[in-house]
């Protein structure tokens, strides 16, 4: 038996209480459905896990394929809602002082200013061009691709790595 759900057997909708409801053909209807990523960092759009409100797994979606647009939107909204990992587009400035650094950044979630500890502790590399930043509050920020940053931002960042 496969661990995966067949997309054509899945029907998603928003329940009156605003939560997600899932109907899997031939099985009961599940409410307060949560969508989780099995590989949030290495492969965020595959292996999506659907769980009911009690934490029982309904099944795993291989990817978005075969799911119609409105339902796909529901899935994406649910993921967007659960996973907060701002992606950094632009680094306006990095001020370093007393072993910590203040970053003035623009992300896909808006512009902000964050404080990190000593840089070698705050930055970790996922691939040679992809980095994660952890601030003093344990929030994380992603630089999906340093090479995609503008010239000035990249120079600022690489100057610190």
């Amino acid at each position, binding site marked *: 038996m*496969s661990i995966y759900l067949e997309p054509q057997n899945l029907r998603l909708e928003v329940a009156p209480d605003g939560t997600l409801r899932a109907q899997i053909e031939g099985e009961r209807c599940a409410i307060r459905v949560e969508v*989780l990523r099995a590989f949030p960092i*290495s492969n965020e759009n595959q292996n999506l896990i659907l769980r009911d409100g009690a934490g029982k*797994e309904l099944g795993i979606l291989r990817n978005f394929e075969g799911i119609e647009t409105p339902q796909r939107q529901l899935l994406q909204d649910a993921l967007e809602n659960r996973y907060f990992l701002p992606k950094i587009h632009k680094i306006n400035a990095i001020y370093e002082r007393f072993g910590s650094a203040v970053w003035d950044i623009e992300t896909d979630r808006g512009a902000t200013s964050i404080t990190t500890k000593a840089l070698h502790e705050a930055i970790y590399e996922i691939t040679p061009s992809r980095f994660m930043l952890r601030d003093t509050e344990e929030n994380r920020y992603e630089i999906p691709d340093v090479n995609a940053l503008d010239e000035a931002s990249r120079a600022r960042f690489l100057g610190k790595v």
Partner: protein
Amino acid sequence: MPDSSPSLDSPYLKPLPAAVSAELLKIGVDGDAVLQLQTDLDSNGQFGERFLVATPEKLVVVSNNGSAKIERETPLADIAKIESRGLAGASSLEIRLKTREGEKNIEILRGTGSKARELSHLATQIEHLRQHGEVPDERDDSKWKRRECPKCGRPLPWETTVCSFCVDRLGALKRLYGYLLPYKWLALLSLLLNIGSVALSFVPLLATKTLVDKVFPPAVQTGADAALIASQNGASRLLLAQIVGVILLSMVASSIADTIRGRVAAYLGSAVLHDIRAQLYTHLQRLSVSYYDKREVGAVMSRVQNDVGALQNFLLDTAESTIISTLTILCVITILLWNSPFLGFLVLLPVPLVVIGTQHYWRGLRKLWQRVWHQNSSLGARLADALGGVRVVRAFGAEDREVGRFVSRSASLRDATMGVETKAAAFYPIMGFIMGLGMPIVWGFGGNMVLRGELMFGTLILFTGSLGRLYAPIQQLTRQVNAVTRSMTAAERVFEVLDTEPEVVEAAQSVSIERIEGRVEFQNVSFGYEKHRPVLKEVDLVVEPGEMIGLVGHSGAGKSTLINLLLRFYDVTEGALLIDGIDIRDIKRSDLREQIGVVLQESYLFHGTIYDNISYGRPNASPAEVMEAAKAAFAHDFIINFADGYDTLVGERGTRLSGGERQRIAIARAILHNPRILILDEATASVDTQTESAIQSALHNLVKGRTTFAIAHRLSTLRNADRLVVVEGGRVVESGTHDELLAKRGSFWKLVQAQQAMNEIVAIGG
């Protein structure tokens, strides 16, 4: 009389001393000896030579201290049993002698620790001889036979093939330069550049001589009338311009050469170092588990890091400055002797003093430095220990004690450092004085020679200039002797690791088994981690394919040791271990490893993501396969609950997992590995009962169709086992189904009783 009895000269037995053979001949032992051993303690426990010789009929012990004497002659038929006993620092051989009054234990031979293995091996051999009338067929004598250094013939220490007498220091240097071979053209270039750059650095100095002698004649030097000078010096001006040009040119060339030289040296050093490091790491992975038993992982790591680091200093720095210093000294000496052999000789007079002084001083200083270094590392260790165990320190309220210890160590470090500095402070002024002696010599003797017209003034200037270039390199070179020695020691240590042969080696003609059926057979297996202290004794056990065996017994009984043999972390000392009827030592190692999976009590997770850890045994597994395995191990749900899911970093710097979580990841790893033989060594000991029963049902699926060995402390965990095997003191004492064993009311029954009593205590107490 021949030196040794020819009759005992068999390919297996070494010749005995003539006196011993002669005594043996008297009692009719002549060529029929099949076993013999020389030991180093006499019957009073004093150092002395004794021999045991066994024929198919009898044992003879001969002592040979001054004169040979037969000490004992016992027919094998009178012996009920022969055994070796490990004592503290010594070993003995004991027989159970049948007498009319019953059996008696008698010690017949004794040896120091260095004979322990041979004694223990001899015991098994004689036992075999006694029972079967012949010596057992030895498959592999390297385990007990002491090897000798091929160069000097001294016996090698166990566990190593490196003779500490025969490592020569220059050998290490030679070998190090062997690593340069792949880069020989670059190395040559580097050497040429060194020579060029040293030679160029002398150009300005040599030019000075010409300037003084040719460009500025005495008239100029005495400050004659300006007009006169100007009228005379047309040619001198041209020469001056030429010389200045040459000096400038040599400076440019020298900087260029230096730049290239620096690059080449950096590249060469790093490349060679990388080669050594890679080779070392590869070799460390090949070495048997037993290598790590005897060493702390920290010490091995320090080899990889510190010793290679010391080599790095040598390759990147010392080697080059040694060459430069040597070349510089040679240049200076050549210039001095060339220009004035007599004055040159005089100037070189203080050199031996400098060399001897520096040598002496450094030898003393090195000891002091070692003390500083040692104090420093002990301070570091103390710190790491106290901070690492900070919870324990707090829990026991030992903060003040820890502070006290740290402060006292810091004080020792302070004293050691002060000692070094004090000594250094005295040295430099003295050396400065000796080196300074060259100057008065040059001016005194050389000045007189100039005045007598025997020496050009320019040459005198050249001498004073050269002196400054002589003493610094000499001192540096002398000091570098120590740096080189240190690097060579590091090199030796690295090479020693590289030269250590793995104990568990792939057979020359290994058999490949594509798919292991899973029949496992222990045939009269004995094994000890230290070869003379057997942990497993004569274990016989046959496990059919697909059978699940539960191993039970007290802790320390030898259960994990059985498993270690099956994993071939170690090889058996006696007997044989067969898988599908083939000796495990003959099976291709990669086939074995691929088809045996193991979950240990404490699972090690590598630094990396959970996904990496689960797929460790099958790096190309798909996400679906990984998730399926995790589900089977009841790990999927808690993994998904981590914000990063399967991408969560674990290991030393990653998310902290509970013991149960680590264990379930390890089980998932084993499930994905899908082995033919599965080993669970207290796999569920660290998880709570509820999780354990969940894992149990997962394991229930997993063990189907594969041979499984499960060790569990909670006997209830083994209820699925087809057969239980009770291990006690390294022996298999009972085996059968749960019910059979209970009915027997033997060892297993006692274990169960003990555990029930325990549970009741817990129940009452809790």
